[in-house]
């Protein structure tokens, strides 16, 4: 595989430079988070820094109303979390938009005094939390759960406009709080994990192996999957599988209801949604429904499971994963001794009690996929009243207003501004659609590709390893010769598999994956989890040892290679590929 002589290092942002964030809107001071900087369009100065496309969390672009939630989450939440926890090398993340698509950058701390001051603060803040993480997380989880109890049980349809407006403001306040909790916990756990990682390297183990020492704990998502498989099995035993494997999800439910036993199944499905359905498909996206509103993702998963001749033995898979984990821990223990072994045992115990690999999955159900649902519900309820009052044409028009615009018009009670706002909505809808179509063709990174990245989160979660950056610095068109192409990445879950590739760029297309295919994608999140029960192997452009795909592949016992940088570019749906999860290679056999 040839490397071009003079590799391009800058992917210019110039094409994406804008003054306005959307037609008719500039990010105002009022919306600016106080720590480091709000979500903005690119400016030319951004060519000096690196920017990673975050298709992991936001694959289809952001409508105007989602800018405020993005601001509160990955921008403000990360910055405040890093500030309060006192993470020494980073002040959190900052976001830019290319059109409507999210790129993430980091803010390095580069003066020695600040590093020292943060280090002192960090020790004081993190130590007591790690000493009793169970109690600490329980407390935070209870706070979030109590808020959902409140918001989920509000009768929005019976509210006056003033009450709805109050509810919407409460929902925004809660969302912001949820994201502070998110980043506070994340940075605390990151430190624990990275200490273990560095210790492992110091005593002669593979640092990347420590995440597999921490696997095997059940999460809300593994339980969701088990329930989906159970529902698939129930459908099969009731003879409903034919009705669930054709047509649109809405048709599926209508056909199932009409069959004998169908009502029983639908009642079970509704009971499932009541527990597991308070989740949307993407983070911060006000425009995406929860499963309760639109259960299509759950129905597609069930249809996918029914395409396999047998069920999935979760107990066996989990047992095997735990045995594998225990065997790896035993092997690690055998290879070190004396005080190294004692330190290994203490670091392992600390990480088992405060387990990033587990939390990285589990928290999504309390934060990432749920925190914006109260805002969505209140927004749509308010939108319905405004539609009735003739202010807007449709409740979903609300998605095309920015939060500061909405706050201004609602707080001032002025009706004149509604006409101006409503007039911009068609343009903004078109703008969103334009960029949604362009999404898959946007570069993985923009700006100056660095040699290394200091922020550990960017390495272990987003996968910005040295190899990843080096691959991106090559010219992909010139870099690969004829014959069998081999792509390298991070060896995330062992095993070898050969099969037909299915390249997916957005979670919305996940239902097209067929049993026995090799999934090739940018990266996966919890929404992708059900697919792991039917695929042969998984290959991702992004990701490191802590990535969702790595963790879930180990639980399902399939090979996985992440952080390849170029898999979705180099592999086409239908290609035959051979994935070696131990070597971290993917061969494209044509």
């Amino acid at each position, binding site marked *: 595989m040839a490397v071009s002589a003079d590799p391009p290092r800058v992917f210019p942002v110039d094409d994406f430079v804008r003054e306005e964030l959307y037609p008719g809107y500039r990010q105002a001071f009022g919306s600016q988070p106080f720590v480091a900087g709000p979500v903005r369009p690119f400016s030319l100065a951004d060519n000096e820094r690196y920017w990673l496309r975050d298709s992991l969390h936001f694959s289809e672009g952001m409508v105007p109303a989602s800018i405020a939630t993005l601001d509160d989450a990955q921008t403000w939440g990360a910055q405040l979390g890093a500030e309060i926890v006192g*993470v*020494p*090398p980073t002040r959190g993340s900052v976001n830019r938009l290319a059109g409507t698509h999210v790129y993430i950058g980091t803010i390095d701390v580069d003066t*020695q005094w600040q*590093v*020292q001051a943060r*280090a002192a603060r*960090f*020790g004081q803040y*993190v*130590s007591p939390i*790690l000493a009793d993480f*169970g*109690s600490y*997380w*329980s*407390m935070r*989880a*209870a706070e979030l*759960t*109590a808020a959902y*109890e409140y918001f989920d049980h509000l009768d929005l349809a019976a509210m006056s406009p003033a009450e709805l407006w109050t509810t919407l403001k409460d929902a925004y306040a809660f969302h912001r709080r949820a994201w502070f909790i998110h980043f506070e916990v994340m940075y605390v756990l990151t*430190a*624990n994990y*990275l*200490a*273990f*990682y*560095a*210790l492992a390297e*110091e005593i002669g183990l593979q640092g990347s192996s420590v995440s597999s020492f921490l696997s095997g704990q*059940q999460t809300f998502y593994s*339980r969701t999957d088990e329930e989906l498989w159970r529902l698939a099995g*129930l459908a099969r035993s009731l003879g409903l599988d034919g009705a669930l494997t054709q047509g649109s999800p809405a048709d599926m439910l209508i056909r199932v209801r009409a069959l004998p036993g169908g009502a*029983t199944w639908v009642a*079970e499905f509704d*009971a499932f949604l009541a*527990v597991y359905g308070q989740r949307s498909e993407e983070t911060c996206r006000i425009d995406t429904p929860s499963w309760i509103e639109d259960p299509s993702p759950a129905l597609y998963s069930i249809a996918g499971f029914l395409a396999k001749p*047998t069920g999935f*033995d979760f*107990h*066996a*898979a989990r*047992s*095997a994963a*735990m*045995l594998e984990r225990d065997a790896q821990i035993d092997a690690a223990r055998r290879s070190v001794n*004396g*005080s190294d*072994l*004692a*330190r290994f045992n*203490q*670091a392992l115990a*600390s*990480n088992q009690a405060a387990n990033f690999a587990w939390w990285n999955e589990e928290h999504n159900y309390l934060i990432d996929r749920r925190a914006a649902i109260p805002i969505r519900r209140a927004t749509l309820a308010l939108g319905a009243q405004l539609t009735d009052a003739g202010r807007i044409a449709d409740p979903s028009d609300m998605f095309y207003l920015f939060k500061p615009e909405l706050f201004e018009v609602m707080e001032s009670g002025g009706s004149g501004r509604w006409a101006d706002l409503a007039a911009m909505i068609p343009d903004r809808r078109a703008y969103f659609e334009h960029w949604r179509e362009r999404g898959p063709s946007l570069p993985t990174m923009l700006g100056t590709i660095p040699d290394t990245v200091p922020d*550990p989160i960017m390495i272990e979660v987003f996968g910005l390893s040295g190899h990843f950056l080096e691959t991106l610095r090559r010219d992909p068109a010139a870099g690969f010769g004829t014959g069998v192409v081999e792509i390298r990445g991070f060896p995330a879950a062992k*095993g070898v598999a050969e099969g037909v590739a299915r390249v997916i760029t957005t979670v919305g297309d996940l239902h097209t994956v067929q049993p026995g295919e090799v999934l090739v994608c940018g990266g996966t999140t919890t929404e992708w989890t059900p697919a792991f029960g039917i695929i042969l192997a998984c290959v991702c452009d992004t990701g490191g040892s802590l990535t969702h795909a790595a963790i879930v592949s180990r639980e399902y*016992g*399939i090979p996985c290679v992440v952080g390849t940088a170029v898999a979705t570019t180099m592999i086409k749906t239908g290609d035959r590929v051979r994935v070696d999860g131990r070597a971290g290679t993917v061969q494209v056999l044509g």
Partner: protein
Amino acid sequence: MTDAARSDAVVDLAAVRAADAPAVGPKMARLGQLASTGWRVPDGYAITVGALEGWLPATARSELHRLFSVPATGPASLRLSQQARELIEGQSLPSWLADAVADAHARLAARTGRGDALLVAVRSSAVGEDGHAASFAGQYETYLGVSGPDEVLRHIVKCWASGYSAHALDYRRRFGGSGPLRAHDLAVGVLELVDARSAGVAFTLDPVTGDRGRLVVEANWGLGESVVSGQVTPDYWTVERDSGRILERRTGGKLVWSVLASSGEAGGTVLAPLPAELAQAPCLTDDEVRYICRQAAAIEAAEGAPQDVEWAIARDLDLPDSVYFLQHRPETTWASAAPESGAAPAASPAAAPAFDPVQYALRNVFKVPGT
């Protein structure tokens, strides 16, 4: 099997004693012994090892042989395990045994006064399980909330098939030595399901340090499954053995509980989010904690070795009538190595410098000068 042997194939728990372990497995034998010496246990019956020996039809046996004729590891062994379990679960018990189980079930329904509403736990009780040398806990399945003789029969077969889980197969490879096709020595217990308000485990020593001066209780609301399977951060108490004083308590971290699945016919349990008003509340009173510890210590004294004891507190009954003992087994981690009495554990922290993840991260991850 002779008619005489057939008549002993299913036995009521009241007739079971410790010496019956080779026939009903140690789990059921200990429970029968416990009941006979006055502890409150759920009523039930056991299907003996002899009754289940060789029940699998010859065609299914040869199919199993074929499956396991090639060694397999990793995902292949998972598939193998799945195929074996499906094959076994597709078979039916012989009709004489089905009749004997139905009779025993009818007797139990009458004794408990529950009639058709009777819900039971179907528990694997393997001979060679829970040995002192190594813990076989969890090699075979237990099914809760099973209703009616037909479902009981189906779950007996499932228990038997669970001996072919990947976990159990691997375990046998590592500790059993004789490969996947060695016959199961499996008995099955069928016990009335306690309608548990709260349930959990008591350890007659501190399972982390091995300190025998303390007992530890872990518990959650609802059925004990969430605690036993480690799916919840349970409420936690340590109790001083000599004084019965509660030394430590950690409550309020519970997010989920195990409850019976709402779909009656299928049975089983589900893990559901815990209602908010229960999440923060301790699931046992101090009196309950102390009572459970006293009884666990008495069981330990009778057995002559540290035990872990599973128990449940029946809804709507008062202490002490509310407390049922479900099973107990020798505590295996510290059974051979535990310090004798209330002294601190032998493992000396002075032997190695303590590992502080925060300081280590500052020095070796964030590389802050001077840390």
